[in-house]
């Protein structure tokens, strides 16, 4: 299960996420020709506190599901990788929906810190044309999973 600070998520196996993405990775990453830009830079994840991790995970997964996965689907059909894509998307949706980051006053600064990290990613995403940004973001799911893996407990 995942322990993003106070937010615990059961019922999703990290291995399944890696397997699903692994089945698509070669096709997807080779489409990304812009090697000099990384959206999920080191600064996005550097020294994320446990408390922040729930907010950051929730915000990133929400963006990935509502924007990247949604708008990249036509490519998924083109590459015929729907099965792996659905497995990945469904599992990430389960994680996101189970993350219930608290919204009280005392968490404002933590939320803002997590949001600043998300904006690092988001602003880099916006600087690329849509197709390139979607391809790059989807190709960086391994970077996202690597970070999420730090909060996984067997």
């Amino acid at each position, binding site marked *: 299960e995942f322990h993003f600070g106070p937010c615990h998520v059961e019922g999703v196996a*990290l*291995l399944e996420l*890696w397997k699903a993405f692994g089945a698509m990775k*070669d096709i997807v*990453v*080779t489409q990304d020709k812009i*090697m*000099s*830009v*990384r959206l999920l*830079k*080191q600064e996005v*994840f550097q020294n994320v506190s446990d408390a922040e991790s729930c907010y950051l995970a929730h915000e990133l997964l929400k963006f990935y599901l509502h924007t990247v996965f949604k708008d990249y689907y036509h490519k998924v059909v083109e590459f015929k990788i729907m099965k792996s894509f659905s497995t990945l998307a469904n599992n990430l949706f389960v994680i996101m929906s189970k993350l219930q980051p608290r919204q009280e006053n005392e968490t404002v600064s933590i939320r803002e810190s997590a949001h600043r990290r998300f904006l690092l990613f988001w602003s880099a995403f916006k600087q690329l044309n849509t197709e390139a940004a979607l391809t790059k973001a989807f*190709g960086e799911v*391994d*970077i996202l999973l*690597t970070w999420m*893996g730090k909060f*996984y407990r*067997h």
Partner: protein
Amino acid sequence: AAPGTEDSPALLQYVKFQSSNFENILTWESGPESPPDTTYSVEYKTYGESVWLAKKGCQGITRKSCNLTMETGNLTELYYAKVTAVRPGGQPFPKISERFSSLQHTTIKPPDVTCVPKVRSIQMIIHPTPTPILAGDGHRFTLEEIFQDLFYRLELRVNHTYQMHLGGQQREYEFLGLTPETEFLGTIMILVPTWSKESAPYVCRVKTLPDWT
């Protein structure tokens, strides 16, 4: 496709990283039309950076491998490598590797183990596995430090039908209740569940000591 462009596989193919215990070796193969005096030059780049860096010691070489361990040693970075093949009087032919992450791609070698036979038991001492990855204080990270969920699986084959099993994250184990002066086959593996990595087994054939009492 015109020679020297990405699509003509004439001089160069299969540029890829081979990684084991975080030792990262770039390898490639010559193309079907490469003359024997073709030379190769290697560059590498961190994903997200714009500059290609030349790898010293792998410029104008004829061998088909290059050790990029130190250059690709940051576990939170991803990397690309580029090999450029040149044949005398011909166009340079570049080919780029896939995006490489040592955390994702490295395989795990068998552990280093000392099997110690006693009269009615066999002790197995697993030694930590150093990697080339340097910590801030200059010491080399071990596999155990890099992979928090790394554990060991030990098996002792007693006979064709009966095996004993032990496992865990500690380094010393002892199979007890064995018959003196008998040969056993021990196998020890490293597993890293988060990354679904599994080493080949270390195997030791050991005979328990005679019981002089």
